[in-house]
């Protein structure tokens, strides 16, 4: 199997994109990605749109067909990928499969979501609709799962509440240097710890915002990549896995089985282990998730990740930078776009285009979490040579 390369990447500014809707956002990122790579729309053979809920949020269906026409990509095969919050990662998996299988030699992936025109309650309900009926009828939301998990983690591992706040402080600090981040403002620990309570013990600054935005990647075989550029990244390993739909049925509330399993398989495919990853984008929809992914992916022992954050080990200038983009916490979380945007950040780090966020990195990892760990995609990328 020929290696699969990423030769272009783009993302729109994330935030409140008033007056712009899902099709506008997808087209903006799609056009920018093609321009970034110097590829014409007519060269596309496959086109994937990662999107969780444009029908529920906006009443817009058929986004993949609309984008194909807006880009002039016909007759390229087009499909929409929905895997809840991990739709972006699942889109990478589908795009990777299309190239790896030989079905396509040029595949565009665009992830996007339009959310901010809805109230917080309405958006929360759209997202909560992915829960099991036995959870939904009790008013369970993703933030409430996060609150219960955070409480259990803090109590079980004797971790201080401040440790979660430090994740938010770090990721906001990283987001200041991301021109496309929703929040480009530092926050201090006191602000985080005194912000309004959302799901006890988690407060407002422990949560990512509601966001509009889109991001895109262009994939092709490595031999084709060399016709376009010397600066590309390779997808070295990728895997997706599921955990229980019903969250309380997991044997250990602090372990996301989908993270563990997708990480294990991605490591195996890539030939790299956790100690060889130079930079990572983790799905910090809630601060507690950064801890769970660090531990599930082998970057820390169970119950000890908070100490690494506390020591600055995961700072941008630390030994192992996590969420140099600002993460979902600062950059924003337009559901279908987030997994793609994680890979955009890792791609930019690997090809040396991350500007003030640049760190030394030859191998990077993204972990995109759907639901509350229900579906997970882990992707490992390395710099092309």
């Amino acid at each position, binding site marked *: 199997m020929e290696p699969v390369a990423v030769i272009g990447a783009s993302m729109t500014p994330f935030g409140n994109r008033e007056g712009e809707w899902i099709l506008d956002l997808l087209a903006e990122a799609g056009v920018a990605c093609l321009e970034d790579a110097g590829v014409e729309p007519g060269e596309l053979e496959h086109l994937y749109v990662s999107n969780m809920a444009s029908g529920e949020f906006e009443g817009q269906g058929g986004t993949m067909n609309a984008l194909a026409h807006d880009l002039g990509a016909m007759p390229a095969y087009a499909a929409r990928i929905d895997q809840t919050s991990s739709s972006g990662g699942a889109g990478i998996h589908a795009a990777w499969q299309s190239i790896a299988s030989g079905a396509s030699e040029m595949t565009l992936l665009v992830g996007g979501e339009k959310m901010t025109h809805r109230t917080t*309650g309405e958006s929360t309900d759209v997202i909560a609709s992915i829960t099991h009926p036995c959870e*939904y*009828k009790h*008013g369970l939301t993703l933030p*409430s799962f996060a609150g*219960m998990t955070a409480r259990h983690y803090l109590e079980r591992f004797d971790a201080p509440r401040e440790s979660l706040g430090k994740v938010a402080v770090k990721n906001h600090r990283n987001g200041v240097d991301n021109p496309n981040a929703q929040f480009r403002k530092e926050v201090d620990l006191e602000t985080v710890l005194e912000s309004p309570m959302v799901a006890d013990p988690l407060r407002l600054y422990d949560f990512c915002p509601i966001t509009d935005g889109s991001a895109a990647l262009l994939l092709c075989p490595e031999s084709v990549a060399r016709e376009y550029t010397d600066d590309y990244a390779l997808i070295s390993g990728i895997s997706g896995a599921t955990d229980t739909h*019903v969250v*309380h049925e997991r044997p250990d*509330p602090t372990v996301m089985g989908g993270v563990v399993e997708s990480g294990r398989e991605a490591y195996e495919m890539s030939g790299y282990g956790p100690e060889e990853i130079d930079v990572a984008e983790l799905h910090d929809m809630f601060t507690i998730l950064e801890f769970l992914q660090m531990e599930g992916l082998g970057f820390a022992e169970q119950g000890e990740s908070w100490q690494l954050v506390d020591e600055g080990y995961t700072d941008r200038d630390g030994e192992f930078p996590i969420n140099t983009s600002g993460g979902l916490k600062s950059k924003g979380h337009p559901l279908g776009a987030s997994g793609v945007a994680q890979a955009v950040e890792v791609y930019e780090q690997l090809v040396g285009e991350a500007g003030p966020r640049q760190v030394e990195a030859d191998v990077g990892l993204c972990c995109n979490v759907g639901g509350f760990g229900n579906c997970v995609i882990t992707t490992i990328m390395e710099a092309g040579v």
Partner: protein
Amino acid sequence: MSGAGESGEAAGADGTDDSENGEPPMAAARYADGSLGYPPHPLGPDGEEPVGTVDLSEHTARVVTWTTSHATPPGVREPNHVAIVEFTVEGEPVRAIGQLTEPVESGTEVRPVYAEELRDPGAGIKEPESQEWDGYRFEPV
């Protein structure tokens, strides 16, 4: 309440048959390997169909963890106290999730209490007819 054993067998696997007090059972599935699961699934962890049910409403449980949600969707009470709880039935653990009648601490012993409507079925995004809206809250013993 606790240790009901076989007397806790629920009337139906789908939890729709009422018990003697007129309230539906809180039905957990019993699988062939002896494990219990709530809610029941068509196939259990061993890949086999459930071999029976247990009515958890006749047992008490311990709170594993809890939260109070202050940002609730349309039709949900605010604040919404919720918890993951663990029952032990004949030595087998089985967890459930649900609303609390009041704030608790981890480790608190609770019992299920029936509620005809846990949230307003017509206020959210889901079709009201697509699922049931009654169930069991947990209150401290």
